[in-house]
């Protein structure tokens, strides 16, 4: 069964950090890079996140994401460099096109910001099981209902994809063309929507009933069967991230 997850199962000190502390890190890295008025903060945060990705041995898994956003960001820089609203100072010419300093700087800032956000989130998603994150959040007080919806989506979407595969197979065996050009595929896809959507709509109701039968809405406090090992430095790290983020905020307000 395919799993809808980016989690990479490796051993590293980043993997060992508990999910909520990683959430604190994500908030710290993103807020600090945006709050601190000098660009250096952004550079430092981005370098920190990237080196954490390397140390967690997941940089390879992160590279397709960076490749994709790299492509998008490249076009942003080009457009800003050429047509940015504040463009005044010519930076260089390339086959007749004039690139401006102001636009390029704006583009660079956007790059920095996006790289910061993406790499911070990648640390979380590549080194944390979604179910662990949700379970810790539920333990910390998130409603079990919301927690259930999030975790089950990760399992049920692959389930829907495989039921689409089964229906597709059935249609192929009845002689329907499902391989070939875009049009052929589109045409094959449309009759799929009905059964798959109807199927999942019906089953949602049954699922909800089955949850009730398992005492999901019992008013008592739930047990967590799996003990989650407490992470030794959780409190210290979280505290540090909060203090640093507050420092960034004060810097911003003072500047």
């Amino acid at each position, binding site marked *: *069964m395919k799993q809808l997850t980016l989690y990479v199962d490796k051993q590293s000190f980043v993997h060992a950090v508990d999910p909520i502390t990683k959430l604190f890190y994500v908030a710290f890295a993103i807020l600090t890079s945006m709050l601190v008025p000098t660009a250096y903060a952004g550079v430092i945060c981005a370098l920190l996140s990237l080196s954490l990705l390397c140390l967690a041995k997941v940089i390879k898994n992160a590279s397709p994401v960076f490749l994709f956003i790299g492509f998008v960001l490249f076009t942003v820089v080009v457009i800003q460099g050429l047509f940015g609203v504040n463009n005044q100072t010519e930076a260089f010419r390339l086959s007749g096109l004039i690139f401006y300093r102001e636009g390029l700087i704006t583009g660079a800032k956007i790059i920095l910001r996006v790289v910061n956000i993406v790499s911070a989130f990648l640390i979380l998603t590549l080194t944390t099981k979604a*179910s662990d994150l949700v379970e810790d959040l539920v333990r910390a007080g998130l409603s079990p209902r919301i927690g*259930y919806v999030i*975790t*089950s989506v990760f*399992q*049920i979407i*692959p*389930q829907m994809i495989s039921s689409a595969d089964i229906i597709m197979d059935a249609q192929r065996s009845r002689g329907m063309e499902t391989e070939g050009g875009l049009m052929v595929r589109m045409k094959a896809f449309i009759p799929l929507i009905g059964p798959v959507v109807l199927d999942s709509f019906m*089953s949602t109701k*049954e*699922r*909800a*009933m*089955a*949850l*009730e*039968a*398992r*005492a*999901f*809405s*019992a*008013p*008592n*406090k*739930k*047990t*967590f*069967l*799996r*003990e989650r090992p407490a992470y030794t430095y959780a409190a210290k790290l979280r505290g540090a991230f909060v203090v640093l983020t507050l420092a960034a905020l004060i810097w911003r307000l003072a500047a």
Partner: protein
Amino acid sequence: MKKILVEHLKYRYPQAAELALNDISFEAEEGEKIGVIGRNGAGKSTLCQALTGLVPHFYKGAYGGRVIVDGTEVLSSSISEIVLKVGIVFQNPFTQVTGAKETVYDEVAFGLENLGLPRGEISSRVDAALELLRIYRFKDQAPFSLSGGQTQRMAIAGIIAMRPRIIVLDEPTSQLDPQGSEEVYQALDDLSDQGLTIVLTEHKIEKIAQYCDKILVLQDGRSVAFDTPARLFSAEDSDAWGIRPPVYTSVCRKLLRPPTGVYPVTLSEAGEALANWEAST
């Protein structure tokens, strides 16, 4: 005390024109096994849901009469109170997989976590349920990796583990091969030996005739008969209910005229009756 008492139960789904259940009455003693049969759409699943309070608490709609399970009136209790007394296993095993757990073991433990039981208690109950349904060896597998029959047994285990005093199973063997259904029925036998009251719907007539103490026949939402399998399938008008009697009964009807008017319903009973008949001719 009656374990299950259903009196003049009527129910109509919201926006439906017809009653799905129309004046149903029956009762069950502790440890009894009650079979519910009837054609597609007769109301079997709806009745199962009414026994656990899903009708009318989950599905609203028009409701009348009384359902009392283990001394508790369903209408005036919440679903989470009722599921402590009555467990229900649904027709489709796949929609009963919570989708929130990574292993079969954790999946079976889900209901117990919700009940807030201590961890030690949870593990011993889960182990016992997995053993009983013979799926212990799959305990570390992903729930969605199981076959239909294994999934069905996992669903039953998840309910059994909650230790209800009554268990309702809606076509528990629809996904199972003959061997698998045999195993499920064996597990249910163990449970009924422990005093559990069992209600189940089933399309395999031979199976239900052999297994159940009493059978309730539904037709278009009405209960048309409630009796022991032998008396029920011996009745002259049983064909009019839209169900066919077990093949053993049909064969004996062609050949025998028992003085009691009660025909055999299981293979062993039929064998015995036919041997006696052969000896007497």
